[in-house]
């Protein structure tokens, strides 16, 4: 084992110790910033792009005193350059962003996916499956990881099916070879015999499922929950988050508080969840971080944190991103609220002046 792999393994252990402490309900074994600073130093030493970014900011790693002084890696960098701290041949898994008409797809490679898996299962248990008797039937309105091997979402859904579902369950995925398998989903739900289930899906897939159902119900047993993730902007039909939540609750016969939003990105190893299943005072639309991750709204130009309650773009610090980018700069607008953050959509593009192609047009996101 090379010294860098030894170092990486030690950092993975520290991240997993935080996750394990969270699962046990214990205090964190070390301060957030302690691991964050060590990750920043490790990544600056092992990821040439991060070293260049730190140098461009005039940052000398030995002098790094606070984690927020270290730059976040722009999400676009995952499309442009390798963002991993190991030899490419050592990648155990690579997730890719969905890409756009003109844009390249971003790649997030992991040498050791066990920290990702531990983080996902711990957050899912705390926020989505909390209080449900195991095992729980997991229904995925999406492709399996076999069908979509580079989708981090498919990986997470399969992980949940294995971690929380019945051992060896096979009838789990209801997007097959790219098509919704509505009759199979209907049969599966009919066969639940009153046991609560958790249905996992993207907003986009649910919009299509609701269209196919054309108003017909597909009632889940009492106590069931539905996970929603991703938006519908740029899709054939855009639907507001509130309207979709209402329609989903109505169709599946669950309360709106049992429709639980998840916010994740291919470039991250951690996910953020609405807390409506676990806190009576939680508001829909407010996402909560696990203790090993934090979302900081920053000014879009200076990239400095904005005042409490102001809107900024999300700098996401994720200590489970051991071998890639411990901090990722997104263009998603967020605001701190009620112990979490509100997600307010993508940063708006510049008003059109002249006839040059705008970045929004390039990304297929023209308003």
């Amino acid at each position, binding site marked *: 084992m090379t010294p860098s792999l030894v170092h990486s393994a030690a950092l993975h252990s520290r991240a997993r110790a935080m996750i394990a402490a969270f699962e046990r309900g214990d205090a964190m074994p070390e301060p957030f910033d302690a691991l964050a600073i060590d990750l920043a130093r490790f990544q600056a030493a092992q990821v040439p792009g*991060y070293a260049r970014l730190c140098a461009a900011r005039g940052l000398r790693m030995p002098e790094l005193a606070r984690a927020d002084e270290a730059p976040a890696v722009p999400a676009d960098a995952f499309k442009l350059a390798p963002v991993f701290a190991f030899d490419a041949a050592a990648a155990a898994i690579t997730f890719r962003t969905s890409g756009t008409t003109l844009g390249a797809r971003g790649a997030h490679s992991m040498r050791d996916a066990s920290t990702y898996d531990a983080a996902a299962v711990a957050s899912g248990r705390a926020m989505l499956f909390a209080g449900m008797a195991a095992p729980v039937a997991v229904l995925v309105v999406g492709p399996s990881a076999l069908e979509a091997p580079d989708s981090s979402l498919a990986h997470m859904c399969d992980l949940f099916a294995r971690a929380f579902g019945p051992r060896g369950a096979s009838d789990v995925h209801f997007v097959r070879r790219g098509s919704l398998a509505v009759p199979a989903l209907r049969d599966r739900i009919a066969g639940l015999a009153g046991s609560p289930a958790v249905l996992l899906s993207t907003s986009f897939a649910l919009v299509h499922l609701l269209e196919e159902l054309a108003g017909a119900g597909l009632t889940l047993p009492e106590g069931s929950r539905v996970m929603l993730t991703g938006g519908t902007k740029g899709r054939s039909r855009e639907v507001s988050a509130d309207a979709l939540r209402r329609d989903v609750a109505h169709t599946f016969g669950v309360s709106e508080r049992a429709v639980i939003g998840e916010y994740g990105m291919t470039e991250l190893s951690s996910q953020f969840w609405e807390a409506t299943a676990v806190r009576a005072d939680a508001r829909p639309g407010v996402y909560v971080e696990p203790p090993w991750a934090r979302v900081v709204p920053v000014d879009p*130009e200076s990239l400095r944190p904005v005042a409490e309650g102001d809107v900024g773009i999300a700098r996401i610090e994720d200590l489970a991103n051991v071998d890639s980018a411990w901090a990722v700069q997104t263009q998603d607008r967020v605001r701190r609220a009620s112990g979490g953050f509100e997600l307010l959509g993508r*940063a708006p593009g510049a008003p059109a002046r002249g006839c040059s192609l705008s970045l929004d047009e390039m990304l297929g996101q023209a308003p």
Partner: protein
Amino acid sequence: MIRGEADRQADVVRLLEASREVYARRAELAPDIVASSGLSPQGVLLGFESLERAASAADLRALVAAAGDAPCVHVILSANVFVAPLRALAVARAAASNVTVRPSRRDPWLARALVAAAADPALVLAERADVSAIARGEIHVYGRRETIAAVRSMARPGVRVRGHGPGIGIAVVTRAGNLASCAAELARDVAVFDQRGCLSPRAVAVEGGIDRARALAEALHAAFEALQALVPLGEVAPAERAQAASWRDAMAFAGGVWSSEHHAVGLAARGGLWAIPPPGRNVSVIPLDSLSGLRAELGPFASEVTAIGSDAPAQVGPFAPSHVRLSTLGEMQRPPLDGPVDRRKNE
């Protein structure tokens, strides 16, 4: 009455006379254009150098041939650089014996000045345009894609809509190109209209590998520093500044960035023309092993590229998409008046 080619050319020539008259008044017009375009005063005067004021006989013939024939043309200027009305009117006037023009609401000054100077009864300003009321002829619309799509959806059956949408320019520096002079000429092409034109270069591919690309990036950084003193960068919207900040960090990660308060040059060490920066004075530099790799490097962007400037355009031509305008560096913003600047299919 059927207009012959000579009549059509004569109408364009009269428009060019009007253009020369407007150019002579540029100092008087500049303050309004500064306010509407966001360019600096020096930037507006630099932009005026791209206003077409003459055309060769061959170019006039080509323009008339490209314009086609229509009973009337309704020109809608929505989003364009401030000198664009001249070419739009020339194409329309070559095509039709009756032309109405709706100037850009944001930037109406040049269209108004040209129409006034032309004093051509067949060329009429229409400050409002009801597309659905246009019963015949053609609509030439210059603007964003959604504007063009909206005009198409509102146009009556039988009314032909020619849409001229956004695009980008790129530069190609060949193995033989002198880096310092290429950088100086490229900086000028970038500075004209602060990269807001569809011919404006936003990326440069440098033949000869990463070290040569890095050297060009450094030379371009120096050229921008020098140019800023002569032609200051104009107004940059907050959203563009934010996009530029994000792009600079991505480029620093990807290969390197050389920047000041007014410009940035980013090096994409592993290629990737898709990392197109926002307008202003921002350029991606991409290493290219050989010109034969240009099409592959452009990838899906090929259809968005309207112009390529190079130290050796004839060498680049065989490897460029067939629709692009080729020019020497420093001349990217002054294409001959031989038809629309954008040669992509427009219907």
